[in-house]
């Protein structure tokens, strides 16, 4: 829904005098066109992990503009991993974060699965 009224109203002057967001996180690292394009095609090499990625992660982590760091866009993942660590990012998957629900659409995933998926998504993608 939101996407459909994109770009219509950007009241920056108003925003400048309003309150800062209650929840702050790492600065958003905007992906370039190459990373946006790359994220659409990357999948884990391991077939089991690829199946989980396809059904649970890909809808958001392969699409720019949702606030989720893109697969293969290391620059977006690094601040998160530096701030929270791998275990902290894993904890975010458990509890949900932003638009991601608790367990990231994979209630049957093990922590090992999640760590492997985080590692895959945070590794710089190769065309």
């Amino acid at each position, binding site marked *: *829904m939101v996407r459909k*009224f994109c770009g219509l109203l950007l009241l920056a002057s108003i925003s400048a005098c309003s309150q800062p967001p209650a929840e702050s996180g790492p600065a958003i690292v905007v992906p370039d066109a190459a990373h946006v394009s790359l994220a659409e095609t990357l999948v884990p090499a391991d077939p089991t992990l690829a199946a989980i990625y396809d059904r649970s992660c890909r809808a958001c982590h392969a699409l720019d503009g949702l606030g989720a760091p893109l697969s293969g866009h290391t620059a977006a993942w690094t601040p998160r991993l530096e701030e929270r660590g791998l275990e902290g990012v894993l904890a975010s998957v458990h509890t949900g974060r932003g638009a991601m629900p608790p367990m990231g659409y994979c209630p049957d995933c093990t922590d090992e699965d999640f760590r492997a998926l985080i590692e895959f998504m945070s590794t710089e993608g190769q065309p």
Partner: protein
Amino acid sequence: MSTTRRAILLGSAGLATAVAIPGVQYAAWSMKDFTRDGYNPGLPPAPDGEVAWSNWSGIQQSTPKQIAVPATEDELATAITGAQRVRPVGSGHSFTGLVPSEHLIVDASRFSGLVSSDAATGIVTIGAGTRIRQAARELDAAGLALQNLPDVDVQTLAGSFSTSTHGTGRTLQPLHAHVEGFRLVTASGDVRDVTAASDPALFSAGRVSLGALGVITQYTLKCVPAYNLKRRVWVDTLDNIMDQAMALSEQHRNFEFYYFPFTGMAAGISHDMFEGEVSGRVSDEDEDTLSGLKDLRDIFGWAPWLRRRIAAGSLPHGVVEESSDAYWKLLSTARPTKFNEMEYHIPLENGLTCLRAIIGALESRKDTFFPMEVRITAPDDAWLSPFNDGPRMSIATHAAVDEPYDYFFSVLEPIHRAHGGRPHWGKLHSLGKDELMGLYPDYQTFLDLRATLDPDGKFLNSHLAHLFGEDFDA
């Protein structure tokens, strides 16, 4: 080539007006806390031996003993027969209480992916737990496409079909209308292969069945050849867009519009079939847009006239975006900003009158800011499809996830009802059996079939018991 044009920022006239605002009124408004009572974004605490579940927006929560994710129909049947009560979950995007259970929640998302496809006939079989975007991507690779898409594409096929999820298009039916067959695991653990020919009653009931008849594991769908669309977004006055809405809905494959409360301005969006080299999707600026609307409310909400004047000076007029791409990259996306929503489907002939009344009611509250969405859907024939008696105009109202939505029920719902509205099954409404019996000619037939398939009420929870007029003791 795609084009997009950002809005003009708050202009000098707006600024001059802004500095002249009465300080006392502004100060009082600026101290207002918009957070609703009871807002708690966290998961519920789960006692030992239970797990926590929440829907996407957080207003539906439960602590079932297990969330099972079976990999096979045998595992699914074993889980169902072994549980006292069961509720299936898709992606948790329903705002109504379709999923909460204190016993077993079944997640069917491992029934995922394209099983087979025939490009010549367009007939495919696909896992019912496949999320829409994955389905669209895999179908695209097979040269095929879904005939339309909803706004959100992270839902599973079963979750979206079972709640009569829809897109927009005067000639386009809701998603479930293209189901040719499905496999259903019932309360007894039996697996039923259902088509219109094999079991016409169950086929009519099962396409939109709220997860009340069993758990669907696979669909057979009628698809179309892969296609591209050309997207156009423009801004005009609400009056102009409403005057043209019926004609625009006939001129374009997909037409919808958004109204920005307290601005008098609306955005029209059309999609039409496109041949040729695509431009690609234009980057989102959604969060900036929504933030701007919220800030306008936060700062100038106390003075609707000022809010309207600033918005009129800040919003662009005319075409703001033209782009082209594969249909599944344009029509829907996941949503980063959480909200709660009510959507009623109004008989098309009453749609615009109802919309006027809803806007009037919404703007009687100074705290609303989320855009309203208006879409049109063509009829189909599933027993519980809200669209099964003719084309309907869907009017959706949203509230920020941490803000009040009680007025959906007290103020908006009576207006929708007075105009012949039927609620979206997955979006907030208060209707129970008595009201629904009056809205759906086949409701009792559905209830009778449900009682036959699930005599012990295994698939009931308190919400479904309310819908069906059943006693429920948890």
